[in-house]
């Protein structure tokens, strides 16, 4: 359908008081050549909206430019359905609220934003969702408490579930635990793990197919269309995956400094559970009763030589096991040596309950040595106790509170190589990071056996846990529709794992539903656009396949990308990566931004009106520009802003376009990169920074000063820094002088 653009200019919120609206109409009609331009006193009022609706119905308007406030204000009011494209020319926050009223520069700014918005509407099409027939079946890997909870929750919601368990029975670690922590007030009594009831419910559920003694040989395809092959030969298709493959105890064999191996009476906490489940606590050496026992906390955990992290559950495990001992041996002396007792939330009540037992002696301390006494008992030297003196304890038995290692971690691997997303600056801008990551993934445990170009499994965050890096979005994943849950994601207890299972399962259900209608999942949830690749012009440079943070693109033997639209998260980083400009979205593409740049009016060099183009990430930095407006912070009127889906979607051709069309400087503003990155697409801001190398080369080619292009990090809360960033950059540009290409 031919596009027919209507421009609607709002006169409210000081707009008409600050700029000449008649001139803006002129701009839209003369420069923008739009067939229709109207104004309204308050466009967001009922009458204003009706005015636009009437033109959509009566005049056949199918592209709407709303020259008013930011698109973050009342977008629902200006949503006229999927077939009508709407764009805002933000002349409120970006223009009249931040600039001198009735000033030439302010007026020029408003006019440019209207031109840019019209250009944007001229070069975009409504997104047509990409759909195929998809599966809504959820595969749950791991039949422990997390996996069982997940399978049942999904099945109860009406979804078909395939549960894959590598062992011959369901239940995971819970089958080996005698009891679980107290979950109910007064938080003193140990409880049943509940795995039997749950396993039975899963096995008898009509929506669940259980594969036991099975592992995954291959997972190919994409969300909604994963083709899975099991070790048993079974083959099926699923739509989304919950990875609940759990954890294993840190090997006690590595804890020789804590005496493991010198006596059979030094055991790991996990062995203690087995002992209680299989006949009760006895001295392993001779099966005799015990008079004394020592629990050593942080056995391997919180130890840079072993597991630098806290395993989160071991304090509670030892308290629970002390209770086992007390129940069996009312007179036994029980010692717990800890660094800090970590019993969060209501579990503090359980700690208080155990502390009330006078014969349970708990102290902070460091283990100086564990040795065997002549009588066969075990001697524990404890230093740096709270009592201010070193103590020696002689005991019948020692339990090492060993920690949790995620099943996604391969033992021999040094920790450093696993921190794929946190490995700082990539050495070689464009390709190194992707390659490193692919290699890293190959070294990890092969559980999913994905046929992805970027590796067989979920990328891990730190210490081998495929956890989310986002505090607000704990299920964020870099492999669309594959969610980790339970002990594999982070150290957690059974109760937390069960909650985690519900969360991950919800996300899996959301993924299959979204994929079925061609919509993106988080963070661009509901986005119906997707990248189209004009492969005839592809030069097989592989940048897109390497840089996609979500592994959406595979490659054929020649290196030509093989798109998997359902894996795509629509960040457009591929669009930014492609030197051939062959990747486009219907409503976001290289040409669209180039056209927006082209229509900006550049005064000639004699007018002493420099122009700065700012490419700003729309996720965090752009809202902060809005907030600067809301706070009426003032900055120079030489700046023109183009929002990007992610700074990583910046194609450097745009920087060239800007400089060629006479802009004096280009600013790039995005999220924080590095270890604590805030980029919503994980690597976008880092990749943008990497592309600065190419930008500098480009500047050299053009014999332009390096200062003309600057990159900044900005958090959403940094709105107060906006004026300074803009004004300082203007000062820099004025120092460098006008762009020599101006007017050429």
């Amino acid at each position, binding site marked *: 359908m031919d596009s027919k653009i209507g421009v609607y200019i709002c006169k409210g919120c000081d707009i008409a008081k600050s700029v000449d609206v008649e001139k803006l109409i002129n701009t839209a009609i003369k420069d923008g050549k739009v067939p229709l331009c109207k104004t309204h006193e308050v466009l967001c009022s009922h009458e204003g909206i009706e005015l636009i609706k009437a033109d959509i119905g009566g005049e056949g308007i199918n592209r709407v430019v709303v020259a008013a406030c930011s698109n973050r204000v009342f977008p629902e009011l200006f949503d006229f359905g999927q077939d009508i494209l709407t764009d805002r020319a933000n002349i409120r926050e970006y223009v009249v609220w931040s600039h001198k009223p009735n000033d030439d520069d302010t007026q020029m700014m408003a006019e440019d934003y209207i031109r840019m918005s019209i250009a944007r509407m001229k070069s975009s099409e409504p997104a047509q969702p990409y759909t195929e027939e998809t599966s809504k079946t959820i595969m749950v890997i791991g039949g422990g408490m997390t996996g069982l909870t997940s399978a049942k929750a999904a099945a109860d919601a009406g979804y078909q579930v395939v549960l894959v368990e590598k062992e011959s029975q369901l239940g995971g670690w819970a089958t080996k635990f005698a009891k679980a922590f107290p979950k109910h007030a007064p938080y003193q009594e140990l409880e049943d793990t509940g795995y039997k009831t749950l396993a039975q419910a899963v096995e008898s559920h009509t929506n669940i197919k259980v594969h036991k003694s099975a592992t995954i040989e291959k997972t190919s395809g994409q969300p909604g269309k994963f083709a899975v092959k099991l070790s048993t030969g079974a083959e099926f298709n699923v739509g989304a995956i919950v990875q609940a493959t759990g954890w294993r105890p840190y090997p006690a064999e590595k804890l020789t400094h804590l005496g493991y191996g010198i006596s059979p009476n030094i055991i790991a906490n996990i062995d203690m559970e087995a002992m209680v489940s299989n006949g009760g606590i006895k001295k392993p050496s001779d099966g005799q009763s015990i008079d004394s026992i020592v629990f050593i906390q942080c056995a391997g955990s919180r130890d840079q030589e072993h597991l630098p992290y806290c395993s989160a559950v071991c304090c509670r495990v030892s308290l629970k096991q002390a209770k086992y001992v007390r129940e069996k041996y009312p007179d036994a002396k029980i010692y717990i040596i800890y660094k800090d007792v970590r019993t969060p*939330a209501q579990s503090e009540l359980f700690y208080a309950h155990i502390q009330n037992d006078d014969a349970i002696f708990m102290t902070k301390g460091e283990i100086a040595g564990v040795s065997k006494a002549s009588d066969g008992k075990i001697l524990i030297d404890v230093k740096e106790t709270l009592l201010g003196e070193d103590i020696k304890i002689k005991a019948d038995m020692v339990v090492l509170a060993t920690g949790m290692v995620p099943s996604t971690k391969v033992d021999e691997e040094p920790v450093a190589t696993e921190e794929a997303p946190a490995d700082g600056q990539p050495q070689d801008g464009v390709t190194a990071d992707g390659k490193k990551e692919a290699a890293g993934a190959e070294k990890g445990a092969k559980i999913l056996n994905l046929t992805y170009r970027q590796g067989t499994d979920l990328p891990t965050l730190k210490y081998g846990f495929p956890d989310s890096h986002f505090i607000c979005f704990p299920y964020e994943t870099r492999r669309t529709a594959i969610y980790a849950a339970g002990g594999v994601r982070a150290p957690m207890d059974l109760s937390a794992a069960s909650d985690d*299972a*519900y969360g991950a399962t919800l996300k899996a259900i959301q993924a299959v539903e979204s994929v079925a209608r061609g919509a993106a999942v988080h963070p661009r949830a509901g986005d119906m656009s997707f990248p189209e690749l004009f492969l005839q012009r592809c030069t097989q440079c592989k940048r897109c396949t390497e840089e996609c943070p979500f592994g959406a693109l595979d490659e054929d033997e020649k290196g030509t990308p093989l798109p998997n639209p359902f894996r795509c998260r629509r960040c457009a980083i591929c669009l930014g990566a492609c030197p051939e400009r062959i990747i486009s979205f219907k409503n976001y593409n290289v040409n669209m931004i180039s056209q927006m740049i082209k229509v900006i009016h550049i005064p000639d060099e004699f007018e002493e009106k420099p122009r700065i183009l700012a490419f700003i990430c729309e996720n965090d930095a752009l809202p902060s520009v809005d907030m600067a407006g809301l706070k009426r912070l003032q900055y120079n009127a030489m700046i023109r802003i183009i929002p990007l889906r992610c700074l990583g979607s910046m194609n450097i051709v745009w920087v060239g376009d800007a400089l060629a069309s006479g802009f004096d400087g280009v600013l790039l503003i995005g999220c924080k990169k590095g270890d604590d990155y805030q980029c919503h697409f994980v690597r976008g801001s880092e990749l943008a920074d990497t592309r600065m190398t190419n930008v500098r080369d480009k500047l050299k080619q053009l014999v332009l000063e390096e200062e003309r292009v600057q990159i900044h990090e900005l958090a959403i809360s940094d709105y107060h820094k906006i004026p300074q960033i803009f004004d300082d950059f203007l000062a820099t540009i004025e120092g460098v002088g006008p762009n020599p290409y101006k007017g050429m």
Partner: protein
Amino acid sequence: MADYQPVPDQIRGDILVVGGGISGMTTAIEAAEVGKHSILVEIKPSIGGRVISTNQYFPKLCPPTCGIEINLKRIRLNPFIRIITLAEVLQVSGSPGNYEVQIKLNPRYVNEKCTACGDCATVCEIERDNDLNYGLDKTKAIYLPHLMAYPMRYVIDPQFAKDERMKKCVEACQYKAIELDMQPRTITAKVGAIVWATGWKPYDATKIDNLGFGKYKNIITNVMMERISSQTGPTGGKIVRPSDGKEVKTIGFVQCAGSRDENHLPYCSAVCCLASMKQATYVRTQYPEADIHLFYIDVRSPGRLEDFYVKMQADQKFYFHRGKVAKITETANGNLMLEAENTLTGEVSKVEVDMAVLAVGMVPNTVDAKPPLETTLDPYGFIAGDSDKGVIGAGTAMLPCDVAVSVQQATGAALKAINIAGRR
């Protein structure tokens, strides 16, 4: 979507979520993105909850508004979610799968025509205590709750709605958005499941006599510390002493201020250790030479958060003292003497500081406003597990926890609710 039209008297939905903080927002939007109709009711004039008044999150030291913005972006255009602010649940009847809920809508005194231009506040002569900043500064009686308010609309503090002076605001508004005679009304919602995510409030520090809060000006609570460290706070983000605006050379963080204490909150509030260490980074950024003292019983930084603790320990002027602060007294110049007792040896250590921050714990709001139906609460007011008879809990209504755990909980609550709503 927000209430851009007056809410009808009768509404329907699959899930009702009570509480529009990070947990409630999460449950509502996660369910909506599955295609379930969610209704989110919030008692305040904007959603966002307590995370809005938090300066940064641990361990990334990133701004909470970043996650709020993404959630707002998800909410704004999702047709399956309805946000109702200034709304209180009065009564619930029915059973899982079929509930009828009476919801009272309190007047905003500002209607849907508001464009947030702020002309009303410019002319407004009345000021009120800013609850967002824990009363540390003022706003006008007609105010925008915060920079990311949703809905983006002004509100009048009800205690001033009848004040004659408000008429000036009415005149200043060119959109006829102010209605001083707006009345409360009650609507009915029919829903299949109810999620209760009403969050927490800080423990009232004045109840901890020995710690001197309320008596000595330079003792503040951790939630106040978030505000004075924030750009949008009363000091524009500058950390200074409340009594005299002096820069801070020594500061003391007092852990377990009320928590893990039989006389106050017997449970652990789970976030305070990391919150204090995070706040120490605020101090360090502004005062590279300041002495920072932290008094603790146990430092609790579970999982990967241990890395944050390890990082803090590398700071040469960040002193960790094991011991519970038993007494705080004022010394010369408004300084404070912290006396801590080693719980095992009884040894007392004393440290003088310019300013003290009490790490007060979390009290569930369900203590005051109990959830309806036969919802079981534990002795501390937290919702005790899922109940087929009562509401589904999410976030800090269930247990003291940080944002990541709240969101984990809240995402799961969406599925629990979907499964219960499916029973009808």
